[in-house]
């Protein structure tokens, strides 16, 4: 199967106060269409940095990154923005909804950066994804009027609205209670069942058990990469 994502010798170095940190060091990774990959490891191991590189939120210091066969490491800022807009959906630990925008406007945000979409088309897509995450009754609310779980469901809807090639989730249950965490994990599971490619960062091994593939990192390097044959039980069971 053709790899959706292909990383070769990818490194990311940060220099702060004249100290160089190797957040990601010489990583090789290939992700195929439809995979549900859990990226785990202790704090500071480089998971989030790797996720940022995968989502083109940051550019690597070294190495090459091929996304659907395209060399993403040589793209300029605008080309990277276009790919983020069309092919990537992000779900963050802290939801990252814009407080000044309503639920519908937050979800619509990626579509507003695409050309040629009518307002009606955008609204249809928004309503569709909000229904998927069972938030269609809160379209006119502002994020501050929602619970954490509801905010994360809106964030998932925003990640889905542009019909992305893959979803990147950075500790999506980190700020949620167990009930809401389960609901979000189920939502990701169901997306995976429908064929979505998901890369999820988690430091919690129990959340990682939901994935079809587990990659474990330490000190900026992959120390374990294993396939899980059976989809895990719901996270509530693990918790």
């Amino acid at each position, binding site marked *: 199967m053709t790899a959706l994502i292909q990383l070769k010798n990818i490194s990311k170095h940060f220099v702060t106060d004249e100290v160089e940190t190797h957040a990601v060091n010489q990583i090789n990774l290939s992700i195929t269409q439809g995979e549900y990959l859990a990226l785990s490891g202790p704090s500071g191991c480089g998971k989030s940095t790797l996720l940022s590189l995968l989502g083109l*939120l940051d550019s690597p210091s070294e190495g090459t990154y091929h996304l659907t066969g395209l060399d993403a490491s040589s793209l300029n*800022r605008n080309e990277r923005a276009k790919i983020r807009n069309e092919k990537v959906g992000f779900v963050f630990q802290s939801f990252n909804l814009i407080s000044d925008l309503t639920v519908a406007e937050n979800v619509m945000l990626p579509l507003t950066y695409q050309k040629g979409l009518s307002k009606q088309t955008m609204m249809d897509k928004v309503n569709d994804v909000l229904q998927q995450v069972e938030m269609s009754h809160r379209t006119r609310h502002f994020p501050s009027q929602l619970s954490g779980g509801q905010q994360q469901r809106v964030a998932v809807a925003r990640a889905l609205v542009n019909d992305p090639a893959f979803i990147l989730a950075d500790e999506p249950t980190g700020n949620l209670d167990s009930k809401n965490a389960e609901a979000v994990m189920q939502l990701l599971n169901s997306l995976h069942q429908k064929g979505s490619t998901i890369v999820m960062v988690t430091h919690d091994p129990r959340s990682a058990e939901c994935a079809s593939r587990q990659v474990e990192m330490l000190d900026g390097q992959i120390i374990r990469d294993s396939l899980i044959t059976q989809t895990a039980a719901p996270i509530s069971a693990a918790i």
Partner: protein
Amino acid sequence: MSWLLDIKYAFRLLIKAPKFTALTLVVLIGGLSLSLFTFSFLYAIVYKPLPLPEGDTVYRVFGNHNGHRHANVAYEILQAMQQEDVFSEYGIWQDTSVRLSINDAGKTIPASFVQPNMFSFSRTEPIMGRTINQEDLRTDAEKVVVLSHTVWQNDFNQDPNIVGKNIRINETVTTVIGVMPKNYNFPIVSKLWLPLPQQLQNIQPSSKQQYPIYARLNHNISLKQAEQQLSDAANSIYQLTYKQYDKEEGELSIELASFPIAQTDRDGSIVFTFFNLIALSILILACINVGNLLLARAIERQKEIAIRAALGAPQKRLTLQLMWEGIIITLLGGVLSVLLVGALLSTTDSIIKSALPNNIPFWWNWELDAPTLLMAIVFTLLTIFLASFIPAWRSANQDINATLRDGTRGAQSKKAGKLSRMLVTFQIFLISTLLLMGSVSAFIAYFLLNVDFGVNYDRTYLASFNLQKQEYPTEQQQRNFIQGLLTELEQSPQITNTFSYFFIGQSTLKIQTEKDINTLPKKIKTFSIIGKGDFYRAELLQGRHLSISDNENAQRVVLVSQSMVERYWPDEMVLGKTIDVMLNQQEQTFTIVGVVANLADGSSFYSDKISEDEMHLSGLQFSSSYPRIIYKYHDNEQEAEEYFYQSLFKFNRNLEPNRLEPASYSSDMMKNIAVIVAWITFGSAGFALLLALTGIYGLTANSVVQRTHEIGVRRAVGATDRNIIQLFLKHGSKQLMIGMGAGMMVFSVIAIAFQSFTENMIPPLLYVALITVVVTLLSVIVMLAIYLPTRKAVKLEPSAALRYE
């Protein structure tokens, strides 16, 4: 004791950030000093009570005739004051200029003819000798004078034996009877006081003169009541006298004004309010800037505040804790501003008094006084509220949970950016209004500096006289005096030209033209002149000058203004034409013998020269008791002035000119004031613009920084740099439009006032041009202020922007 710890902590924070401390201090000192100086400077001119005991009960009394100020109705006013028991004391005086001769030198000094009660009225005793008494008013009394401390000090070297000595005033031996204390120049600028001449003491019903009146209001009557009572009484008298003594028909009312207000022609309160509003706006700009800097600091400390709140600190304590930094800076700024303003006032006082030693009202003293200190406290408290309390209160009202969970970005509520946006909008509103007002003021100042009165002031002097009926009972005697003085002056090698003129009044032209007579102005300003005046004003354009042959026995002749010719006889030869004029309630026929240039003598400086018509009659046919003499000197002003007095005293040793000054004196005074006002306005506008620029940039940059995380989110979902910049510019455009829209609306109202004040002198196109320039300038500035920090923010990688706190 805990608050002491808070203060200590605030000091530590300020010392740790010296650049921040210095910047906020400079901004605050600028705003506070400007406001305080404006207040104190204008308060001393307009509202400060006279520096006399019970100075707040002292008023000047004016007559308004048909709503016009300065009515020449002294008799009616004095009669009304006698009838109505509204004043505990009152009196009249007359300002004059006298020639003080010491050895062979002489100098002109402002003086006053006064009644004996003036000194007791002002509650001031002489430091030596006595003041003027009733005996001194007698015509046969010895000539006496009371010296001011300034004259005693500067001209008589503080001679301890000056009382009883004879000095020469107007070449008349006069005995010094007393010396007044330092800084006493009541009623306005007097440096010498002489007894009021006998003829001024009994003002007749026929008098058409105006005399300044001082009065102390009774404690049991209000200002309004007094004005009403006096107006009713004076008007009743006037309705009897105007018919009998050939005065102008109309209603008479009385107005009381304090000396300072009266000195500003009773418009002082408008000027005071206008400039203080501008200064207060600038202070508010400074407060917004400092408030924004403190808010940015508070946001940096939001996590710390959340931790303190989580540990149980009450909101009041947190607010106060956040305020201490602002309070310390503001108090320090307040103290430094007071010191700076004190030094500025003292310098201003010295500069103005040395530049205009004889023309400053005695109450114009600029110093740090109680009202200034009180206002400093008010401004400081206002600054603490605006620049310190509001940001602290906002910051202490955060969502603790969100801040502790997500850092400062988690606490960014929907309201967070609103305050910044509102402040930017408000700054745009203020600065657009100030810029537009400043531009129009600059235009007016430029106009005043270059206004053409139709008069050539070059090396000319003006002397005005009041020829008393007792001394000059017939018109022939008056003419003889004027002609004689002119002839004598022309003998001097230092004097090149002379002439005399007098404003007779408004005459009515009886004329039939093809035009509708009702649309033409009926009143024409009429002067009488002796000599050729076109070296000074009203240059001859056609025909001939009035000459010595145009005397009482000759036919009545007239020079008409160019505007009059264009208005009434646009395509006709006017020379030789006869016109009928109602003058002094008599219809008289005049032959036009010349056409002269127009004069700027409309109702204000802004009136067009063609707005009024003038006629010039022969002074040998229409003489006056109040002539003005104009002479032009060759190159030595002092010698010419000396020669003037020598010539005058050859005719009459007892006659003092009411005024003797460069003819340009009033014009120069007006221009000097225009220059001072223009510089103050430019300085203030420059400072305001700097504050607004830094403020708008600071607020916008802060707002962009606060939205860095949002930028990260937008970029994560695919927004390009261009998308983000466009979005921020779009938001900025809204603020720009709202702020400038509000500014335009306020300016429209002000523009109407400007138009009325300047009699539509400002062309409407100028407003359009100014608005275009200001809108363009501000748009560029605001857009740059948004673009630069936004461009900086989008340069961050999205991953970094998402982590930004």
